[in-house]
């Protein structure tokens, strides 16, 4: 451990004590729940603090009695043991008082819960689907749909012994390739479901999390009051890369949202139009797509890992183009770990990533795969 680390650790211990003495909050030592940016998160935060204060007061009272007793009723101070072992009055009192306190806590809790569960009418619906290990977002009213994975830079840094210092990446493990864009001051319904195993979608600033369960559709709502970038995580263990499927929400004004929708639609139309791309375009896009979708198993340098084949110099990536396209789009028949990416990526992304795999890391086949080739290979 470096001296620096030690210093910070000592500071941390001091921070703990400071927290109790004066409630000083150090920026490097996050301590509390966020107040968030929605009416729900505000209510939840207030309720959290209320309950926290109540249990703190109870705790101090109970601990004070124990501590007093420990210091005063000790043999070394010559205390003579009393012999009482029963008091109906005391026992009834400390049954009734907690019940009253609990009722006092249950009332605001019930109110908040009822508030959260009333979706009422919503202006738009966002559907969230959990995949191993990325999220798919469908804007049901707009026919926009895309996948969102851990950003390539984070993905590279989080590999075992990557040699990249995570502190060089801003918001490490909380960056994605395609963030969700949502309008502020809009009641949004959020549906959650999953395609494989159970996931859970959580953006703390929105004030809740909800499981995404295969075969189930769950609904919730949010109403973001402040524009900004809000980050979250998957919170239900979903396999190997559970820790690496973050959520990024860009909350923008209603006007900016309309602009974004138009842009996104145009982008999606272009991607599915089958228009040919240049080698440079394919390679550039392919590197990004590879970083977010393929590098977790085949590694950023294409060398593969213990259970995953290398792509650099592999028979598939340097052999028959049609076979390569088929495996990426429809999955491998020989290796169930190789998923079918046809449902997850659009034609342009697939064309780009296959082209990239055939020309990166010294594969240099010179082959170009166009979106139209991918379209043809879809079954």
């Amino acid at each position: 451990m470096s001296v620096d680390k030690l210093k910070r650790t000592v500071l941390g211990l001091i921070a703990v004590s400071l927290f109790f003495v004066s409630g000083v909050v150090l920026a490097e030592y996050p301590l509390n729940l966020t107040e968030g940016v929605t009416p729900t998160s505000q209510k939840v935060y207030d309720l959290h603090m209320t309950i926290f204060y109540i249990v703190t007061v109870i705790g101090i009272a109970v601990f004070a009695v124990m501590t007093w007793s420990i210091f005063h009723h000790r043999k070394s101070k010559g205390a003579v043991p009393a012999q009482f072992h029963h008091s109906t009055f005391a026992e009834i009192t400390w049954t009734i008082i907690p019940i009253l306190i609990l009722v006092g806590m249950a009332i605001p809790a019930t109110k908040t819960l009822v508030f959260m569960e009333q979706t009422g009418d919503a202006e738009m619906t966002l559907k969230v689907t959990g995949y191993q290990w990325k999220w798919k977002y469908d804007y049901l009213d707009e026919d926009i749909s895309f996948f969102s994975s851990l950003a390539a830079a984070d993905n590279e840094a989080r590999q075992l012994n990557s040699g990249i210092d995570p502190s060089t990446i801003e918001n490490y493990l909380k960056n994605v390739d395609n963030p969700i864009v949502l309008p502020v001051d809009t009641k949004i319904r959020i549906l959650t479901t999953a395609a494989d195993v159970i996931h859970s979608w959580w953006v703390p600033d929105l004030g809740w999390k909800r499981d995404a369960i295969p075969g189930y559709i769950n609904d919730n709502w949010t109403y973001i009051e402040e524009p900004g970038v809000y980050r979250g995580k998957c919170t239900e263990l979903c396999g190997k890369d559970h820790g690496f499927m973050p959520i990024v929400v860009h909350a923008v004004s209603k006007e900016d949202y309309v602009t974004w929708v138009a842009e996104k639609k145009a982008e999606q139309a272009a991607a599915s139009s089958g228009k040919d791309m240049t080698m440079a375009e394919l390679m550039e896009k392919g590197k990004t797509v590879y970083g977010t979708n393929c590098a977790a198993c085949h590694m950023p340098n294409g060398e593969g890992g213990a259970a995953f084949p290398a792509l650099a110099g592999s028979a598939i990536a340097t052999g028959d183009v049609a076979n390569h396209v088929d495996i990426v789009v429809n999955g491998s028949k020989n290796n169930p770990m190789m998923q079918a990416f046809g449902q997850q990526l659009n034609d342009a992304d697939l064309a780009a990533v296959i082209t990239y795999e055939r020309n990166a890391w010294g594969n240099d086949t010179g082959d170009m795969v166009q979106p139209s080739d991918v379209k043809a290979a879809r079954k």
Partner: protein
Amino acid sequence: MAKDPTRTAKKLALFAVAMFGFGFALVPIYEVVCEATGIGGRTGVISQSEAEADQVDAERLVTVEFDTNVDSALPWAFKAAEFNMKVHPGEMAEAVFVVENRSDKPVIGKAVPSVAPPIASKFFDKTECFCFTEQRLEAGERKEMIVRFVVGSQLPEDILIMTLSYRFFQVPDNADVAISDTKAVKTKI
């Protein structure tokens, strides 16, 4: 000692065996509880005449959204013809879904429904649905399928929007008849 520990132990062992059975009994109990409370978002099935018996509440309009999902193993496209519709509680409604087999061989699929919010599922009844049976699509076949449903007039006032979601799963081929038979025994509708 007059007492007999072996007897006590035997009784307790019986109790343990009964609790093991109870674990399995929780499966049907769960079904019943889900039916009654809406946990699990299950929808109900009623007959045409039952559906017509419900009073139409012309005062209220409820938005019903249709969400579609396809399991990754199934090479199908599946969409609602209209993404949402407004219905009066108590009124018979019909939604159309389009499904297309994009593979070059016949495939059997089965749709599993779910309703959100869960409480709404108690009041969501179908008289006819493509999800009641398995669907077989020939290579490249495209088909329209319908759901006829009623949102009960007893629906709580505060529910203004609900989602009916389907996920199509692949039904294993004939080679696995035994498996598909066992699975068909428990059909969530």
